[in-house]
């Protein structure tokens, strides 16, 4: 059993990615994720990998596109404004069915915003990461250990479905220090017969491409891709439930908000309110099944986020009018306190009690 070591979130992401077989990192400095790039800059040369500080985030994502097309496990990371710059490149990757891992260590926005943590990029990650009809698989870890585990699995999932994967973290998780057990080094990486890694006259040549001038072919491509998305929605939903069995009210929260919400739920229980926490781990596919299963025995939902209300829309879609869905959030880089969330839970429970 490996030893626990103290690592910063950003460091754990980098270390676990390397153990997952990532040998190409293309990035750019931006607070609060720079430690990830700095770690890669130190480690990659030692293991025969490649670290490049690209001239911009646009360039970095295109380098990921190229490395991925050639069959490598490649990764980039940035924070909110830098992720916006990657939008076109990510759309191209999705359109060319190229795997890859993109990490967003969110900060306050919009615009240059603040360097403090936020969860303002939920919509961007799950709905609008770039132009066109496509989805990314989006993970939202909430501890440093989970960050390591998520990024470690992300490469496998990405390769399996040929869909780019995003990890939506936030500055708090990226900067916090927690004990981690790093996973074992992966040795058996899956073969990629579609990769542009040299046909050696053994096969037809492969092309990484998102341009399809014939409309019927593009439609066919999209249908096939959406069939893969359907499989992802069926098999890859992940969430964690806390005190849900007898819960009358459910708090839905991810990432750093989930840690705070959990403390609030514990406090609320001490005061006799039967509340539980449903923590999505995949934001896309959204854990619809887990949420839907709570509807019969609950009276209401509270979405707690560090933004102006984004994931709450997805909760409302699943609940589909059956129960009230409320929202509580702080933004701008302000982190909500357990007491504030507790007050919101009480409002939710109080309102219901009054009816």
């Amino acid at each position, binding site marked *: 059993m490996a030893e626990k070591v103290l690592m910063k979130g950003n460091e754990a992401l980098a270390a676990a990615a390397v153990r997952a077989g990532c040998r190409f990192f293309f990035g750019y400095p931006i*607070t609060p994720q720079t430690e990830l790039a700095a770690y890669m800059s130190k480690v990659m040369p030692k293991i025969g990998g490649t670290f490049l500080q690209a001239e911009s985030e646009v360039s970095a994502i295109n380098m990921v596109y190229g490395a991925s097309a050639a069959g490598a496990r490649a990764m980039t990371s940035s924070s909110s404004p830098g992720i916006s710059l990657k939008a076109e490149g990510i759309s191209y990757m999705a359109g060319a069915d190229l795997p890859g891992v993109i990490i967003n260590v969110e900060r306050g926005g919009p615009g240059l915003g603040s360097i403090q943590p936020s969860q303002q990029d939920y919509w961007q990650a799950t709905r609008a990461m770039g132009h066109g009809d496509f989805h990314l698989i989006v993970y939202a870890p909430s501890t440093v250990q989970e960050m390591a585990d998520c990024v470690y699995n992300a490469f496998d999932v990405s390769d399996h479905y040929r869909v780019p994967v995003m990890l939506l973290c936030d500055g708090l998780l990226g900067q916090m220090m927690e004990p981690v057990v790093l996973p074992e080094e992966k040795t058996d990486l899956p073969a990629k017969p579609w990769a542009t890694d040299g046909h050696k006259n053994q096969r037809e040549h492969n092309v990484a491409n998102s341009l399809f001038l014939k409309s019927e072919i593009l439609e066919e491509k999209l249908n096939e891709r959406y069939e893969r998305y359907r499989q992802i929605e069926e098999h890859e939903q992940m969430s964690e439930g806390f005190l849900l069995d007898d819960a009358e009210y459910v708090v839905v929260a991810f990432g750093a908000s989930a840690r705070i919400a959990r403390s609030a739920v514990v406090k609320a229980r001490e005061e006799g309110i039967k509340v539980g926490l449903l923590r999505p781990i995949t934001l896309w596919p959204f854990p619809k099944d887990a949420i839907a299963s709570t509807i019969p025995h609950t009276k209401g939902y509270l979405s707690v986020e560090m933004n102006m209300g984004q994931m709450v829309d997805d909760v409302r879609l699943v609940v589909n009018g059956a129960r009230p869905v409320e929202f509580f959030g702080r933004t701008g880089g302000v982190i909500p306190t357990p007491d504030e969330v507790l007050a919101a839970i009480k409002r939710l429970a109080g309102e219901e009690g009054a009816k």
Partner: protein
Amino acid sequence: MKTLYVGTTAYEYVAGLPSVVIVCGHYGVGKTNFSLNLAELCARMGRAVTLVDVDVVNPYFRTSDFDELIEKLGVKLIAPELAKTALDVPSLSGRIESAIIEAQRDPHHLLIIDAGGDDVGATVLGRFAPVIVKAPYEMFYVINACRDGSTTPSDTLMLMREIESMARLRVTSVINNTHLKSFTETAEIERGIAYADEFSSISELPVRMHTLPAFLFDQWLSVETTSGSRTPISSTDAEEYLGSPVSQKTDETPLTPSNVTVLNTLCVPSVKFSTLMCDSGFVVQVYVQTPWGS
């Protein structure tokens, strides 16, 4: 390996510290947490303490973030001008050099300089080194066996040399701050003591303090009563034992929770204080070598 000694009480130890104290170490070992604890202790022991934050590497969790707490402790703070704003530019206060010179002139003063992590963070110290070396200084190298990147004494030594090189200063003693934050258990403390002893040996530097999270207090600190039996003491009682003379212990007896005696418990943060700091508050046991050796 190291004997626990009689003699120096907390008050004498703090009074004997040179007026410029630097805290350096690997990124994330607990320098800032330790600096805050040390500042609290020294202020309580009667020195005029100023904390200087020269960390221009870490975007979050810097000494400057604790300005309200620091003021409550009666400690002054010199922080980067743009601290606590969204501008994460590396900037330093222009008052640092004069603060160093003033402290060197007045032995009542105590300047605690909290450096950023690794050699990158220590680069700032290099700029002030020519002034610092004009008078005696103490440079604590904080170590943590559980911190990724410094889990072995040899890695830890290599990092220290890199820091010394950029700081243009020599480390004078070691602070063993081995912990896994709120997940720290006795096993980590024991491992840390062994690690610190080995590090002390290869670096030829004394371990000035071993730290202990407040929540492990009653497992580790006990006092010998007149009848010879041991009773554990809680963090609230520990205040009584501050400054009391200690009983001697021999080299051969290994340190275990049952036979560690209360020595000079320097820093006893209140529960409130420790929750403000981070998950675990820190209490510091001092193993101080007396001049007449082991």
